[in-house]
């Protein structure tokens, strides 16, 4: 089954990066339609009807988020695009912005119209500086055509769009840390409330949305919210970009219709074409490094034996006991030779490195977990270290200002839940643990 494409439809059209080609493919006609024929509230209504959920990872309904925006008289409101893509396993926004920058630019203007924002910002991670330059060029082209600036399409709507870089900090993907960073400060998340919808950028009402969410507004307004909602299953509507990586035959970015089976996504000819080098699937982290890992027998089927689907609900089926999350769509696959302990240590090192240091449970806890996991991985751990990890975990989870603490804790808890015997093997086989990886189903393999 090939998925319909709403975001990447014109990916292969030569020159689609430039405005002339983008316009020839129907680009900016949706913006024109909205500005000439729809009120801002009507645009918001269509986005609500579409069922679009935040594509950055949290999955919160975008239309509902928009409806929370405070609109006090005489105070500017802002739309901020979160292009700080940095959840390990996730590289879809970079792809979209690099290949079809005008889709994001059009989405930004359109969404800003809906929100009544006359200025919007794209905050892009500093490591994507070359993408920033691609976006900057697209923005200049849009100004030259009159799609940005004063009185766009004669509608009376004025809009300015600015793109600005981060400096290397995972935490700035958290929306309030992003706003701090956009104000030229350290990326320390803010205590909520007040939420950004009330006090965001420079204390003005602000909506922060992910790149893919904003881009999706274009096909939603073009085709109507109902048409978008007719794709997918239940509360998982529309299409989603999945960035597939790890030990896959064909890693990359795929636009899928939500509801595709996980089995087809991993093994299908139109998608990842199975595990690289003819190996077997050992485990999968389906939604970016922060979501629980699934052992091979829970990847394509749920615990109840039903087919696992690429939807918010199906991937979460079984809760944290036997499920995971769709998250950001960062789909990480592990082959039979990979070591779960080593990977868990690696991810924890990432979170320890990226903790902003503001909350003690996260600042200290992620560092402790990293140390404990490192000694387990290198054959220097003891049995009680495994329980110690679970204990630290519980003390981080829910006790921090932002979700980075949870994001660090959940993967460790899930790895121990599903692969406890592998952690124990590292304790009982200290010498082998230093030389070998623990492969699929209790078969230690030579690294």
């Amino acid at each position, binding site marked *: 089954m090939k998925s319909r494409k709403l975001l990447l439809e014109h990916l292969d059209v030569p020159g689609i990066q430039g405005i002339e080609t983008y316009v020839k493919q129907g680009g900016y006609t949706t913006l024109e339609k909205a500005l000439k024929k729809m009120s801002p509230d009507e645009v918001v209504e269509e986005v609500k009807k579409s069922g679009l959920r935040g594509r950055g990872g949290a999955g919160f309904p975008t239309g509902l988020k928009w409806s929370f925006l405070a609109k006090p008289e005489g105070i500017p409101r802002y739309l901020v695009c979160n292009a700080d*893509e*940095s*959840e*390990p*396993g*996730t*590289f879809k926004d*970079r792809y979209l912005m690099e290949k079809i920058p005008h889709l994001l630019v059009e989405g930004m203007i359109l969404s800003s119209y809906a929100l009544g924002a006359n*200025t919007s910002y794209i905050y892009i*991670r*500093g*490591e*994507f*500086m*070359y993408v*920033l*330059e691609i976006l900057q060029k697209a923005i200049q082209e849009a100004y030259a055509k009159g799609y940005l600036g004063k009185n766009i399409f004669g509608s009376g709507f004025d809009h300015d769009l*600015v793109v*600005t*870089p*981060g*400096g*290397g*900090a*995972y935490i700035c993907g958290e929306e309030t840390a992003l706003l701090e*960073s*956009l*104000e*030229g*400060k*350290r*990326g320390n998340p803010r205590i909520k409330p007040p939420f950004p919808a009330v006090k965001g950028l*420079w204390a003005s009402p602000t909506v922060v949305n992910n790149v893919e969410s904003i881009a999706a507004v274009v096909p939603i307004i073009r085709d109507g919210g109902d048409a978008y909602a007719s794709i997918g299953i239940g509360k998982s509507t529309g299409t989603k970009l999945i*960035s*597939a*990586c*790890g*030990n896959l035959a064909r*890693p*990359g*970015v795929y636009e899928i219709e939500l509801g595709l089976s996980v089995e087809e996504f991993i093994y299908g000819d139109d998608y990842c074409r199975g595990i690289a080098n003819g190996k077997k699937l050992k485990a999968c*982290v389906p939604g970016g*490094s922060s979501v629980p890992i699934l052992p091979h027998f829970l990847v394509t089927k749920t615990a109840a034996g039903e087919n696992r689907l690429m939807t918010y609900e199906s991937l979460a089926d079984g809760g944290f006991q036997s499920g995971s999350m769709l998250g950001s769509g*960062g789909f*990480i696959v*592990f*082959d039979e030779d*990979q070591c779960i302990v*080593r*990977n868990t240590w*690696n*991810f924890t090192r*990432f979170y*320890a*490195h*990226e*903790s*902003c*240091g503001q909350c003690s449970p996260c600042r200290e806890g992620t*560092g402790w977990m990293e140390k404990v996991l490192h000694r387990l991985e290198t054959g220097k751990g003891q049995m009680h270290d495994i329980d110690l990890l679970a204990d630290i975990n519980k003390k981080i989870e829910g006790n921090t200002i932002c979700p980075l603490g949870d994001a660090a804790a959940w993967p460790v808890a899930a790895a121990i839940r599903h692969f406890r015997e592998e952690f124990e093997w590292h304790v009982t086989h200290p010498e082998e643990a230093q030389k070998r990886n623990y492969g699929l189903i209790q078969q230690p393999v030579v690294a």
Partner: protein
Amino acid sequence: MSHSTKPMLSAEPVEFSGELLAKMEEAKNLFPNGKEKSALLKMLHLAQAEFGWVSVPTMDKIADLLSIQPVEVYEVATFYTMFHLEPVGKYVFEVCRTGPCMLVGSDQLIEHIGKKLNIGMGETTSDGLFTLKTAECLGGCGYGPLLQCRHRFHEHLTPEKVDELIEQYKRGEIEPGAL
């Protein structure tokens, strides 16, 4: 948390060229009056592209341009991992080491580069050309193992490809990817 805790080296006074000052002014003008501090990260990137690293006098000068206290620049420059607060080689290889890259061989790649350049992590070759660093997830997970150098991604790397890459950099054949 591993943001820089090293003492920042003092250095010779810096002179910002007219071109650099113009770029910084342009960065400031993207933001409303009174909110120019929002341009700080961009200004640090611009300075680093010019000088290779960010010294205390550079930060002081940026503070001056933004009419803010120097400490407001120091606290930001030390928070974000992209800014080099001490001199580095002309080409800084930042090799991604996070999960998805590790699954496809980043550990072995990092080891190979270290041996090839005969330097340890964070060190610079004696000719001042190369510095080796690791980076956390660079957002190219499907194209690993990979490294970034002067805003350019080098992806799908193998030891052989890295060897060739090093030669290309030595011959000055690779332009910065941005800025």
